[in-house]
């Protein structure tokens, strides 16, 4: 398992479009991805609704936890997506 804490950078927060892009990125890999914040319940990142319920806003930090055969690549891909602000402002 690999994990990393990241900060959400895009202005509008983790709304539906970022959640969708995140989920699509997760599906590019075979690993299982869990997302959590503030020590709360870990959410399966293959569910768009689950991701939305996290309510992550700009500046919030959250943890991405990846387990599986391609976990390093998956975590790298997801970090890149978050840091790219999902192509937003």
């Amino acid at each position: 398992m690999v994990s990393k804490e990241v900060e959400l950078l895009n202005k509008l927060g983790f709304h539906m479009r970022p959640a969708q892009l995140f989920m699509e990125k997760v599906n590019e890999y075979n690993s299982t991805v869990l997302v959590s914040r503030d020590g709360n319940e870990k959410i399966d990142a293959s569910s768009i609704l689950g991701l939305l319920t996290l309510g992550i806003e700009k500046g919030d930090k959250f943890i991405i936890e990846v387990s599986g055969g391609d976990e390093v690549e998956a975590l790298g891909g997801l970090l890149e997506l978050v840091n790219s602000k999902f192509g937003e402002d």
Partner: protein
Amino acid sequence: MNISELMQGKMISVDLDASTRDDCIEKLIQNMMAEGYVTDMAAYREAVYEREGKGTTGVGFGFAIPHGKSSGIKKAGLAFAHLKTPIEWNSFDGKPVSIVFLIGVPDKDTGNEHLKILIALSKQIMHEDFQNKIFNAKTNEEVLEILEAI
């Protein structure tokens, strides 16, 4: 957040007759317009379709949450529809859509109200109990009662 406060009279339709996604969106926009939430229908419509163009808003379980942030919206509002017959929405789980929540927020959404509404709705839609209650609500009052209680 009390999302029932974002809805007024005509913005709740428990038996909406819509044959396609676009037909449904159009009718819900008109309902928001009728209640004074929309000042520029063309601008708001464009925002909603631009969002749909980026990827489906069919979140699964038979629910869709189309949304748009626009200068054509006077104040944050939420329109609800339970469709007479389910329609195709290219949903994440492939299921046709029966329940639609259309969100409209003003361009200058300083409090990130859009995200708050999405979170509030998502939290409920994940629960089977909420899904069943909303599917079985027969009147506007019942819909409001369910949404007030969340």
